[in-house]
Every structure is written in C-alpha cells, then in structure tokens.
C-alpha cells in the first residue's frame, strides 16, 4: 500500500521544479538581479530546452539547479527535495569540456561511481558499459586530449549519466563543436534519451537546436532574467532518427514563433 502511495506521489510531483527562483549578484558594490520569479516544471522523461538572449541568466539557472550556486529567493526541487548542494542525483554536462585530462576515458566515467561501487573492479566494469553506450568502447583507455571535441562531449555525457542521475543538466553542451559534429551529437543524445528514458534540461542559444530536440521550450528574457513564455513543440519526431525534420513548414513556423518571442523579450527591454 505504502509503496503504491509513493508511486502515485512521484507522478504528481515534478521531476524538477523551479519555484519562485530568484538570484541577485553584487557586482562592484551594485546589486544586480540576474533571475526573478522563475517557475517551471520538468516532468519525468521530458526533454526541455531553455533559450534566451545572452545575459538572461540561463547559465546561472542551470548552475543553481546543479547546486554550484545558491538561490537568493525560492528554490529548485528534485522530486520534491530542495537542492542545496551539488550531488550526483543531477548529472551535469558543461559547455567547456571539463573531463579530467589526467584520467583516461574509462577512469573519467568511474569518477562518479565511487560511492555505488567501492570495489574498483566492479566500478571499472560499470564504467565500461557507459563508455560502450556512447560508442567509445575502443577508446576506453585514451586520454581526453587524444580525442576530438565531439568524442570528449560523449565521454562527458557518459560520465554525467553513469551515477544514474534523476535529471541530466546540459549547459550549451554542443556550442563548441563544428556543425557536422553537432548534428551527429544531437542525434546521439536523442538516442540515449529515448533508450534510457532520462529527463533532460538543455540550455542553448541556438533556436534551431531547441526546436530540433525539445518537447518543451522555456523562453527567458534578460534584465532581470525571467520566464516570458513556455512553448510546447508538437511537431512529430521521425520514428527512427528521433530528431525532427527541419525542412517542413511546421518546423519553420515554430522556429519563427520562437524567434519572435525572443525579439520581443529583448525589444521590451530597450523601450
């Protein structure tokens, strides 16, 4: 009975919830409000994108979610539990490749598994499964510097997912990659997302990327960073490749809507 209750609860409580979130920085003695009254819900298994003009606080937002910075008002909740510090219940993939250069691919993935697998042998086995999952099995013993940018980000994804986080937070993960690698990585990410049924929060400034990948797009406006629109993307995903066909009129329509929203959000600031 009790178990059924918990399950019922977990369906009503959002996987990741932002509640009245605010963040104020003090820069050279002046207080600057970076985020104001953010309320957003991310459901289990959902892929959401957060877009906004530069300076709208999207990076701050995800850093608070990761626990790397603290909220000034309100808070972020993972399955109803308030986030106060970093932890491996939330996986994080950074824009700048942040793999540990002194560890091999396998050892990088092993880093987050130390609590789950105190035994080093078991830990290596578990890590190898993840290295295989991102298609880098034959590079398990390479150092990050020996890999291309796209491969490094795949390792970063494997490393973030290995401890079994409830949410995968991604801060412009593909921004530093070239166009072809980026599109391959997008497809790859969608495959992992579908296969493992994970919840993804994806920050990007690339609108096309947001429409291509996300179920739902949150649009932020700058000064102070605030939520101005929530845009569900209802374009069908193609069955085998999961990403959307960007050459159909519906795609262009959503992209235009999103672009207009962003233009308004920046324009309103200048008035």
């Amino acid at each position, binding site marked *: 009975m009790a178990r059924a209750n918990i399950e019922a609860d977990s369906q009503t409580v959002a996987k990741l919830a932002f509640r009245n979130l605010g963040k104020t920085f003090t820069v050279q003695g002046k207080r600057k409000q970076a985020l104001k009254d953010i309320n957003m819900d991310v459901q289990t298994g959902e892929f959401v994108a957060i877009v906004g003009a530069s300076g709208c606080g999207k990076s701050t937002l995800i850093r608070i979610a990761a626990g790397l910075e603290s909220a000034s008002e309100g808070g972020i909740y993972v399955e109803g539990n308030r986030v106060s510090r970093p932890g491996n219940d939330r996986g994080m993939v950074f824009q700048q490749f942040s793999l540990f250069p*002194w560890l091999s691919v396998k050892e990088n993935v092993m880093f987050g598994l130390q609590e789950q697998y105190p035994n080093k042998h078991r830990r290596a086995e578990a890590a190898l499964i993840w290295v295989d999952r991102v298609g880098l099995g034959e590079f398990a013993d390479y150092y990050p510097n*020996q890999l291309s940018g796209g491969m490094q980000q795949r390792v970063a994804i494997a490393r973030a997912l290995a401890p079994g986080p409830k949410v995968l937070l991604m801060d412009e993960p593909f921004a530093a990659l070239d166009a072809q690698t980026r599109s391959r990585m997008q497809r790859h990410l969608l495959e992992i997302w579908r296969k493992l049924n994970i919840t993804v929060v994806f920050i990007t400034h690339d609108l096309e990327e947001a429409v291509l990948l996300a179920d739902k797009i949150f649009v932020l406006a700058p000064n102070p960073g605030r939520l101005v629109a929530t845009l569900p993307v209802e374009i069908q995903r193609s069955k085998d490749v999961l990403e959307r066909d960007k050459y159909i009129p519906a795609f262009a329509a959503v992209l235009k809507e999103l672009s207009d929203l962003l233009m308004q959000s920046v324009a309103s600031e200048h008035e």
Partner: protein
Amino acid sequence: MKQDEAADLRTKRALTLGSFLLPLLLWTLVSYVPGLWQPLIKIVNPGDVSFYRVDMLVEIEQFAAQKKITLDAGATPPSGEPANPVYLPAPHEVAIALYTSFVKPPVRRSEVWFHQSIWHSVTIIFWGFLYSCLLGVPLGVLCGAYRPVSNLAEPFVEFARYFPAPAFGALAVAILGIHDAPKIAIIFIGTFFQMVLVVANTTRRLDVRYLEAAQTLGANRLRQLVQVVVPGILPELYKDLRILLGWAWTYLIVAELIGTSSGITWFITQQARYKNFDMVFAALIILGLIGLLSDLVLDRMGRRLFPWQEKRLGAR
C-alpha cells in the same frame, strides 16, 4: 608537414649547438689569436731587469718602460710575449684541468678528491630540497585550495621570504653545529618560503571547472583535494620544482661557505687561493653540466610521468 617538422627540429638542434659553440669560439679567439686582447706581457727572458722572473706577467706600459730604461743604460733588455691575465686560462688548459681535477689526489690527507666534493654538494642539495618539498608542497597546496589556510599562513610566509637565507648562516651554525646540518638548513630556508607561495599560486590557477565537475559527480572536499586538485596541478607543480631546484643550487654556494667549508665551493675557493684558475673553470663547467643534465633528465621524466598532456589528435 612532416618535412617541415624535421627541418624545424634540425634548425633547433643547430641553434642549441650554436649557443654553446659561440661562447667557446669567443673564448678560443681571445685565448689564441695574438693581439686580439692580451693586455699583459709574459716574460720569456728577464734580461737585466732585476725584479723580472721567467713566466711573470707584467703590464704592457711597464714592460715598455723597463725595456727603454735597460736599452738607455746599455744593458740587456727583457723579452716577452703578449699574454692574457691569469684569470683567463686558455680552453686547452681548462680541458687538461678537467682531467687532472679528477685524477689528482688531494694535497693534504684531510682533504677530499674532486669527485667526493661534487658528491658532497649533491647530497646537501638533495636533503635541503627534499625537506623543503616535504613541507612546502603540502602547505602550498593547502594554501591554494583553502582560503582560511592561505589567510593564516601566507602573510607570514610573504614576510619570511624576504629574510635572505645567507643571513641565517651564523644562527644555523650556532644551533646546528658546523657540519652538514646548517648547510641543509640554508638550502631549506632559501627554497621553502618561495615554494609555499609558488605552489599555492599554481594550485589557485587550477581551472575551477574541474572542481565543479567533481562536485556534480558527488565528490566531497577531501576527494576534490586528493583526486582533482593534486593530480590536476602535478605537471605545473613539477615545473615549479624544477625552477626552485635551480634556486637551491644558488644557495648551495652560500651554504658551503659556512661552518667548515665543503663540497665544490670549498674546491673552488681552495683552487682560487692557489691561483689555479684553470681548475676553477673546470669546476664551474662541471657545475653547469650537472645542472643542465639534471634539468634535461627531469624534463624527459616529466613527459613520461604526465602522458596525458601530449596532444595526439590522430583519433578524430
């Protein structure tokens, strides 16, 4: 591409060789080409000048004056050939000295062979630098990693690093006796305070994203220190220590002069006292070689120790 690299490497090697050959060439020219420098006259035959002796070095003007005096008096004039001062021995003399310094037994029974004095110097450096590392590196890392530790330790270290290590000579002898201990202490004082600051700085320069990544992977502070900070700074730390080791050699000269003078410094001062400047140059060359070779070895070892630094982008 490959050919360019090979050509670059050849140019680099040629220049490296040149950087040694140029000073050697200059030295050779000054020593062997007559009239290039040679400000003195070496007496071959004293003639009737009463105070001249064979092989004596005199100023050119004085020699000319004496020559004129003897000629005017109708006596036998002195003869001589141009020569360099005694403190600039010719390359071949130094080369011979390099050999004889090793094979010549010590003058007195209480004295040591040349290679023994070199070895003594190396052991002093080794112990002084080792103690310095054992304390300085952990303290430096802690200062770099934790602000409170830095606030507690660094102001005093900043103050103490302006103490000139040689100034501790008398104190070190009074406390530690006249043998090796005060010498090791001088090396320690000379390198320790700098080391703390340099290592702390290197630690602070570690990219914060590695620490943030570790935090999001559930690492606590101890694990961040041991598994991220320490391995993350190792290559830079290694470079720092190589530079600081050079400082240790500088302090060696001071250290070996206090108490009972010893090691290679003793050898150099002793030979200078006998005016065996060829031996002095030989000892300097040996010192330079030890420094250069040990640095080369450490550099090679560094590349072995930290293979992850090498970029190999073949696997795209």
